[in-house]
């Protein structure tokens, strides 16, 4: 079975940008022809669960109720659509990806010492779907282009260290061998590597953090600073000899939020030759009670004007692929392990109008057309900029 991108549905009619028929045609063509990379994809998004028949929904509920922890339930939810595909019971998620026009999304590989049961579970789950005919785990730009050519969805591995990177560089090598190519230095809190963005204090990298950056540079692992605090972000840019990314963030020049980056940080990241991936997470983009994809595009515009479109990419990170009650538990400010606070206003029920799930990726292209970007810039933001960085660091 071959899934050709040409089968992709036309751009969603769900959001009215007021495009002319000619502009719609141009957006459709650009989206179809471009390499489309989401640097922090959250699979299909949580609306997918509404589209399964009731019997399957009940099965999912039972599987989640049976989980030992919210994180384990989350893992089950994320991989549930893949499991159904593997069992030949539903290819809905493959169908949604096809409709999205996505060339390459991301999956997680943890950096750990092998003793963490949950990390091992994630890895086992990831491996379980490696031979699905419609997806392909990739590590190089060549493989991403081949996936586009072959009509399969590519997945590129990124690590968000909600459990801090162990104090042993060999763990990074182990993760690299498993396919990891992008490593975020910290999550939201301070750890022995650096300081996260929701901490009350700000500071640069630790001595070990510097070793981590140098080691990533030497083995060809992208250094990512998405959740890092300001000084840790600046330090990483100062010390990295290769391009640095913030693959899912926003611009505080548009809207002040701990998860966004200041102009100074955005300039520093761009100066490494790196990338700023803009999120579709409403709370990070705006406090407008009716957030829409226009807010995401405002951030894209801002970063492009500040540092050039060559440094802009997409890293949606939203909506997460799990039922809402579970997400509410996971991302609650009471879950101190994740480090999101009440003032970070993370609302799992909120979505951008015009970006409900992965099938709305074409809306980004349509929005870029509406805002007057040239074809080259649109192709860059959708994927070619990311390919340049991946090529430069990983090959």
């Amino acid at each position, binding site marked *: 079975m071959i899934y050709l991108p040409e089968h992709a549905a036309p751009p969603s009619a769900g959001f009215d940008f007021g495009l002319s028929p000619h502009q719609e045609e141009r957006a459709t063509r650009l989206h179809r022809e471009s390499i489309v990379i989401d640097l922090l994809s959250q699979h299909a998004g949580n609306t997918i669960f509404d589209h399964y028949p009731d019997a399957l929904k009940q099965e999912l509920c039972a599987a989640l109720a049976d989980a030992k922890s919210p994180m384990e339930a989350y893992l089950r939810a994320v991989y549930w659509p893949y499991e159904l595909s593997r069992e030949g019971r539903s290819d809905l998620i493959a169908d949604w990806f096809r409709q999205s026009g996505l060339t390459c999304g991301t999956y997680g590989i943890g950096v750990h010492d092998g003793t963490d049961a949950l990390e091992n579970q994630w890895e086992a789950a990831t491996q379980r779907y490696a031979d699905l005919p419609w997806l392909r785990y990739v590590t190089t730009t060549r493989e991403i282009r081949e996936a586009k050519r072959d009509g399969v969805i590519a997945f590129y591995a990124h690590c968000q260290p909600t459990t*801090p990177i162990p*104090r*042993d*560089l060999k763990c990074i090598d182990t993760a690299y061998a498993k396919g990891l190519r992008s490593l975020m230095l910290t999550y939201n*809190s*301070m*750890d*022995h*590597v650096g*300081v996260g963005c*929701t*901490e*009350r*204090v*700000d*500071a*640069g*990298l*630790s*001595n*070990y*953090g510097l*070793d981590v950056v140098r080691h990533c540079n030497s083995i060809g692992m992208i250094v990512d600073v998405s959740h890092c605090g300001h*000084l840790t972000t600046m*330090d990483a840019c100062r010390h990295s000899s290769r391009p640095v990314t913030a693959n899912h963030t926003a611009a505080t020049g548009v809207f002040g939020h701990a998860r966004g980056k200041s102009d100074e940080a955005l300039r520093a990241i761009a100066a490494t030759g790196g990338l700023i991936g803009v999120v579709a997470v409403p709370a990070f983009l705006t406090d407008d009670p009716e957030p829409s994809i226009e807010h995401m595009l405002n951030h894209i515009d801002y970063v492009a004007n500040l540092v050039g479109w060559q440094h802009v990419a997409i890293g949606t990170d939203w909506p997460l692929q799990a039922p809402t009650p579970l997400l509410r538990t996971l991302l609650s400010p009471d879950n*101190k*392990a994740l*480090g999101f606070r009440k003032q970070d206003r993370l609302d799992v029920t909120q979505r951008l109008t015009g970006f409900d799930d992965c099938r709305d990726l074409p809306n980004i292209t349509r929005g870029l057309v509406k805002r007057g970007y040239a074809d080259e810039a649109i192709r860059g933001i959708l994927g070619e900029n990311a390919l340049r960085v991946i090529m430069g660091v990983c090959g």
Partner: protein
Amino acid sequence: MNPETSQVDPAIAGIIDGADVWDMTLPWLPIYWDMNVLASYRAAGYTFVSATLQDWPPTLAGTERCITRFKAAAAPASDWLMFGSSLEQIDAGRRQGKLVVGLNSQETRLIGEDLSHIEGLYALGVRHMLLAYNVRNLVADGCAESANAGLSNFGRQVIREMNRVGMIVDCAHTGRQSSLEAIELSTAPVIFSHANPHTLCDHIRNLHDDQIRACAKRGGVIGVVGVGAYLGDEQARTETVFKHIDYLCQTVGPQAVGLGTDYVKILPASRYEREWAAAANDADTRSWPEAGNAWPDPPGKQLAVESTRCFAPSQLPELVSMMHARGYSKTNIRDILGGNFRRVYTVAERMRATGESPAA
């Protein structure tokens, strides 16, 4: 009267014999598991030694194993040696003429992200805990980190829980900003169990005057270290230890000064790894110093720990004699020898018992 103090001026011996003599840090490597070393503390007149009995990097299980194993090894010496964590036990030991061994932890990372382990460590007998050891952890920055971060959000929870439990916050090896924030936040006095003034010796382990002043102002105590590298004296002469004590007394007064001599035997660096691993009875030998440059030397002029001597327990009478000769009162000398740290223990025990902060 014991042989060490009998050779000195009876007036000096009298001061020591009438005092609580506390050494707030003895990292108890298996190579020290020689009762003669502890006997030398007792012979010199020490009444209490706070030992670090843990694996490295420390784990809860390794700490428990270390304590259990050492208790077994020390059992034959029970006629002159005992374990004691509470003041009641420490006082009972002194009345019986025994050297009392208490416990500390030189890291917080063994609690992971679970505050309840602080109560668990207290139950084991651990009474003071370093927030960080040289390198950054989830709680605080270490003194070897040039980035000098403050306390993390989690670190602030740790301090509150330590206050509640009655575990003394110890900022030795902790970064400058983190230690200042810990002192400000803690409702109980904060100690530096083993650190020297930076003004006298430019070393990452030593304290700047703002740390010294903040600590003293809130009723805390600084234990002067006897390691040559932190004294700035390869020979670890008594005169140099006195200079460090005197600097602290001149800066913040004798109520904030104590002893925390740290190592009494220095090993070649290559042996620490093996010794700490052996301490945990752990076949899995981990690196020490671990990745992360646990002992960087930015000024390039620090003496290497393993190339220097350490202040020995037998130097204590000479130290007391020196303080006496320089006009330190008997009361002040006794406070420095142990009374000051004892005061901090008293406050911590009262706070645990009553749930109240110390009177301002």
